[in-house]
């Protein structure tokens, strides 16, 4: 059974919007030198963050990883804020302090990823703990890749969440590679969901390229969590349809795998399904695509014209108490505020 029509349409919209934004970033802005740092995209994996985070309530929270563009957009970040973030603009989500997917904003209950993979896993447990202590009926979605599961913090976080029975859903995108490292060098098992057993939590493996399957598995896990049933682990099998980042040509990935998985493209699949089930017409899908292109065009041009941060902001925001900056800051009497120019 399909979710209600609006949700179905929204899922397509956010998947397509994610793809469009990331394509623009990776294939255009990055190549034009407008994005100076690294670029990681979730091409081919859009169903995972979209199918899961679409069902959150306002006070729920997400801890996204580096291939979860859809989750950021669904939680309320605009395309412009995201693009400005990538370009290091002052209007970006982090005002230029942080790079690419390291977007966070507690007004939207989005926790910024730190590069050290799996660090957000215990943090998500702590957020869920706060919900539990405050008797809020909210949940946290915590995203990570297959590689991240090898880190100690992953284990500690799952165990703590399970012992404390807190409302968190752990979502693994198993795209079968961590940078150049294939799954069989990462772990001796094929299904990461198997590890849920070790934490006495429900664990399922779903087709991560089927947004409906992701939606359904998340729905169950979220419901369990919201009702005090504790954490779950959902493994979404998928494939990284790019290199690890924009500079990686992924020549270590057998070509056949790309071919095989391009046939399983989650957006195409969902479009076909919606048209087949008459949730949307072909015309509506086309118009959605056009609208998205326009939205992104506009966001790109706004972001491109946005200002960079003022160099002096470098020294701001380390502590809540702004008066602390001065004594700690650089070069005492020799510090020249104009040194950037």
């Amino acid at each position, binding site marked *: 059974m399909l979710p209600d029509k609006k949700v179905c349409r929204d899922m397509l919209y956010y998947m397509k919007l994610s793809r469009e934004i990331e394509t623009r970033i990776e294939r255009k802005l990055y190549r034009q030198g407008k994005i100076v740092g690294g670029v990681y995209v979730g091409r081919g994996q859009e169903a995972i963050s979209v199918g899961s985070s679409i069902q959150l309530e306002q006070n729920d929270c997400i801890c996204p990883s580096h291939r979860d563009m859809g989750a950021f957009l669904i939680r309320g970040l605009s395309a412009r804020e995201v693009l400005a973030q990538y370009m290091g603009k002052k209007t970006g989500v982090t005002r230029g302090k942080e790079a690419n997917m390291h977007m966070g904003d507690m007004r939207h209950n989005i926790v910024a990823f730190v590069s050290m993979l799996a660090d957000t896993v*215990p943090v998500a447990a702590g957020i869920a703990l706060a919900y539990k202590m405050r008797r809020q009926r909210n949940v946290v979605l915590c995203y990570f890749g297959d590689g991240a599961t090898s880190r100690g913090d992953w284990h500690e*976080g799952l165990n703590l969440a399970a012992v404390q029975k807190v409302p968190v859903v752990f979502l693994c995108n198993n795209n079968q590679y961590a940078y150049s490292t294939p799954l069989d060098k990462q772990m001796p098992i094929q299904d990461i969901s198997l590890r849920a057993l070790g934490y006495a939590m429900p664990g399922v493996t779903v087709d991560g390229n089927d947004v409906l399957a992701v939606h359904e598995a998340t729905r169950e896990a979220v419901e369990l969590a919201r009702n005090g049933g504790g954490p779950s682990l959902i493994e979404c099998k998928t494939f990284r349809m790019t290199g690890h980042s924009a500079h990686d040509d992924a020549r270590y990935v057998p070509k056949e795998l790309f071919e095989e998985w391009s046939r399983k493209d989650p957006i195409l699949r969902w479009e076909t399904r919606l048209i087949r089930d008459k949730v949307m017409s072909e015309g509506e899908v086309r118009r959605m695509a056009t609208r998205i292109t326009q939205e992104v065009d506009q966001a790109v041009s706004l972001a491109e014209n946005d200002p960079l941060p003022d160099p002096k902001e470098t020294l701001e925001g380390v*502590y809540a108490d702004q008066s*602390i900056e001065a004594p700690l800051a650089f070069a005492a009497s020799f510090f020249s505020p104009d040194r950037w120019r």
Partner: protein
Amino acid sequence: MSATTYVEAVRQGLWEEMTRDEDVFVLGEDVGVYGGAFKVTAGFLDQFGEERVLDTPLCESAIVGAAIGAALMGMRPVAEMQFADFISCAFDQITNFAAKCRYRWGAGVPLVIRGPSGGGIHGGPFHSQNPEMYFVHTPGLKVVAPSTAYDAKGLIKSAVRDEDPVLFFEHKYLYRRVKEELPSEEFLVPIGKADVKRTGGDISVVTYGAMVHNALEAAEVLAGDGVELEVVDLRTLVPLDKATVLESVKKTGKVILLHEDTRTGGFAGELAAVIAEEVFEYLDGPVMRITAPDTPIPYSPPLEEFFLPKTSDVIRVARHLAAY
């Protein structure tokens, strides 16, 4: 009114803060039923209940990580490291997650990480460490190390109320050896303010933690010889109260930097740099460090004794400087 020990002062401070603010809670290994390895949270479970006094699994990184998560939601977690040495296991969460949130994306992490540090109790290499410098060197963290019961109580309360992550290093050698009468009314000690524990015009001794007491002992002895030490107790390492340190050095022109932590890369270096850069003209003698040597902390009494800086070291170096 009877004297309150250092460890009891920490306990009282936490107790008062938990009573004042429902968002404050403690978590860590054996903090609940057992009341903490050093009994800092004894009685808390009965008073505040299981939800606010959390016995966690053995996982320092997740303890801190979970505290960060709760703090992001506006809670006020106080995480105990059973021994400060084990903070090494949470190093990444502290330095990369907690320390950098506000700067990176504007999210405050009002979190306290506390635990017993320091040597002198024959704990060996893993139950005696002074891990403050790892955090002093990480922008975004505050680092506190009280030397008296009064400061311990006043500072733990300020730490709980601080909007940023505070590392609170108690000195376990002082836990039951140091005591004093505390005011019956509530008081706070501000983070970021040093305290001149003894005034004197000849030589400044800048120190913190257990070594404050060695400095005071030395001052007592030297006063007999007519050499007056000024003992500056930093109390907070970050943010550093530079003004108080520099004022003292300007007055005396001579300075001993004293800490129990090992030498290379220790806090004395930071102080030496600040002094040699900013009040160079006032110096009447070399800036002297007294620290532990650059070794792990050995177990056997003669070795540990040899390792720890002591009052006699301060006296010896002070005499040398006095004659300079």
